[in-house]
């Protein structure tokens, strides 16, 4: 276990290093000069050059990247080019909102996805099952921009049940969490359904039925805990998918998370922020995967870590 953990930690660090390198290279070769963005339209060539020098952007790639890594080791993500604030501060101010939204969205997708999956499995092949699977397919494929605007329009503007975007209370959380959760719930419903169907076919379920347990008890006590295992293992991987959706959903609902921050930074070539958000997201994904793998043996004793 100890050796396994060490190896995985080293691997994770290498993945993060790779992500930082690739992102830095991409931003470096981008045909857009951050110095121009900082210098503004009235800058003279001399001003532009002096800004480039001040920021060390006149140095070769290796020096710039090396400097970035060296600062990163000291947990210094640098200062935003345009906001001129510490990137770590900007991210730290927004991270709680993103984590809250992500937590709520995961809860949403699990509740909806697992419930629908079980129902579909129990009514397998009938109209209800087919209806639910079509629904899940729609949930998976609907663009989140449209879904979020639709939910916003119907439930906030027309019905007035929820506030029109913003942040702060439980009411603010519901619609964005639901938008994000719907996408995942489609996947989970499908996965839960097939997993449940497999389990229901298993010998121990037949035995449980044979010894006279009620249908409800068989499903809740015997089938569900077994069927849910692969679904739980997915959550860690899911974080990566969330990071993509969060950019859109946070923008529409005015949710002050890091997705919104990243989106603004990309438009303005604010490289330190883009790097910072990318690394923090990569860290979350790597940590999520690692955690999912570490937890797996506790949920399913058949899995051994090697």
């Amino acid at each position: 276990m100890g050796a396994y953990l060490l190896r995985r930690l080293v691997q994770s660090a290498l993945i993060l290093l790779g992500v930082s390198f690739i992102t830095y290279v991409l931003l470096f070769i981008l045909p857009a000069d951050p110095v121009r963005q900082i210098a503004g339209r009235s800058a003279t060539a001399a001003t532009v050059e002096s800004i480039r020098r001040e920021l060390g952007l006149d140095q070769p790639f290796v020096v710039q990247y090396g400097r970035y890594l060296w600062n990163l080791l000291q947990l210094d993500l640098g200062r935003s080019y345009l906001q001129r604030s510490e990137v770590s501060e900007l991210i730290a101010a927004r991270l709680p909102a993103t984590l809250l939204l992500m937590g709520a969205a995961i809860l949403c997708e699990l509740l909806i996805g697992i419930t629908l999956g079980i129902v579909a499995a129990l009514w397998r092949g009938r109209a209800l099952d087919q209806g639910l699977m079509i629904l899940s397919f729609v949930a998976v494929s609907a663009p989140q921009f449209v879904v979020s605007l639709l939910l916003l329009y119907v439930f906030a503007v027309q019905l007035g049940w929820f506030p029109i975007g913003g942040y702060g209370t439980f009411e603010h959380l519901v619609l964005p969490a639901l938008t994000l959760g719907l996408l995942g719930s489609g996947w989970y419903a499908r996965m839960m359904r097939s997993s449940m169907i497999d389990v229901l076919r298993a010998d121990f379920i037949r035995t449980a039925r044979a010894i006279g347990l009620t249908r409800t008890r068989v499903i809740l006590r015997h089938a569900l805990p077994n069927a849910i295992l692969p679904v739980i293992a997915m959550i860690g991987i899911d974080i990566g998918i969330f990071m993509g959706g969060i950019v859109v959903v946070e923008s529409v609902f005015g949710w002050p998370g890091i997705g919104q921050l990243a989106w603004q930074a990309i438009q303005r070539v604010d490289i330190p922020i883009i790097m910072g958000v990318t690394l923090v997201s990569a860290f979350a994904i790597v940590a999520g995967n690692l955690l999912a793998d570490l937890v797996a043996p506790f949920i399913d004793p058949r899995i051994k870590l090697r």
Partner: protein
Amino acid sequence: MNRLLASTALALALGLPAVAQEYVPDPAATMGGGIVVTYKDDVATLDPAIGYDWQNWSMIKSLFDGLMDYAPGTTELRPGLADSYTISEDGLVYTFTLRSGVMFHNGREMTAEDVKYSLDRVTTPATLSPGAGFFASIAGFDAVASGETDSLSGVAVTGPLEVQITLARPDATFLHVMALNFASVVPREAVEAAGDDFGRQPVGTGAFSLADWTLGQSLTFVRNENYWREGLPYLDQITFEVGQEPIVALLRLQNGEVDVPGDGIPPAKFQEVMDDPAQAAQVVQGGQLHTGYLTMNVNLAPFDNVAVRQAVNMAINKDRIIQIINGRADPATQPLPDSMPGYTADYAGYAYDVEAARALMAEAGFADGVETELFVMNTDPNPRIAQAIQADLAEIGITANIQNLAQANVIEAGGAGTAPMIWSGGMAWIADFPDPANFYAPILGCAGAGDGGWNWSKYCREDLDAMAAAADAIVDPAMAEERLAAWSEIYMAVMEDAPWAPVFNELRYTMRSPRMGGADALYVDPVSIPVNYDYVYVTE
């Protein structure tokens, strides 16, 4: 008051440029209350030496003051922190007498030392100010810009409340420069205490001070009780909520939760809003010092041929392009917008005439057509405008392939001179100050034609540059008309060479909640976008 009147009279006598009469306060204005303004993007910084987007520009104006200012809702200069000023006969020495008893938000009195410190700070390279170049006419600028020294030799403190600024060359636009945010007066101790975070902890002399900034969510401005303009501001508080999509902001305005959607009316909703009398009544329309244009790179074929550039000017159907943006613009005939001094009123521009354009193309040897590229920024409505231009050009045999890119990439290509054509929408050009000079040097003069400059046509005529320099050396107020005539002549020469096809001058539409009061001009203030926060009020 007497001194102010005296200074105003003096300035009027000098007449350089038009200086406003004393502003008459709105008799209906009531004190108190607060408003909510929304924006999609975060506020980048409130440091007046750095902030240079249209969002933080007006916010900074309300937190800080400079020596000069504009009468609200107009482009007329008036003294700000300066109580009065005199200009030497050769136009090289400006002596400003400051108002006494002006307090910074931290309670300290503003002095001439602060003015000197602020100008030194904005020009020193370590500040990374995008506005440093505006101060290039001050004597000693080059030594500061190159890092040789950190003090402008041309700015001297001649008394506790007196500053003398010496210019290296006469500059008729200098008082406008002193009204730019970049010339705001900041207290040294607060800047030094905040270090690189002054943009988040701004301390100025303005009508409002920053009370709270919750990153990514909101900013709260509160009234400066010690503001030096008596009886101002009217509002107790302004809350800026960021991260709000324009369409969501409009819904919230209709719901009574928002007073001003800072990003304006979303294009997709514009017609709906204007067709509804109740909503249309909440919209204020005004002009702005903007021109949208198509640049043609005079160094790249086929646009190295003046006949082709003129043909393009004749081929573009401006009225149809204006329809694309719901009629939110007037057709342009020349680089300057019509509200800008120096505009040539009796010039009709190139008329829309496809036949004549085809003839010019044939004459230039392109009867069989030619292929080129049109760069455009990728946010609506710009790609749609580019498509309309593409269709117009196809009529005269020009096949323009559209390069639809992010703003930074288009600016990069324009600066590097690799883009044959660029549609300027979403990037250029809105005047920094209301003077014809501001539409020339950076975007049509040789100074901007170098690598990375904003003169995307790479059009450079030394003789026009010389004419421009001569015009800006006319500082004698009696000859102000002559100066404008010289500028008009320059722009007419530009149109002859046709490095641009001017397309339209955008209009401005600001929406406000029914509870907001104040003259319409305050809501389309040419200097403060979207509104002049110091003078608007609420009625309930």
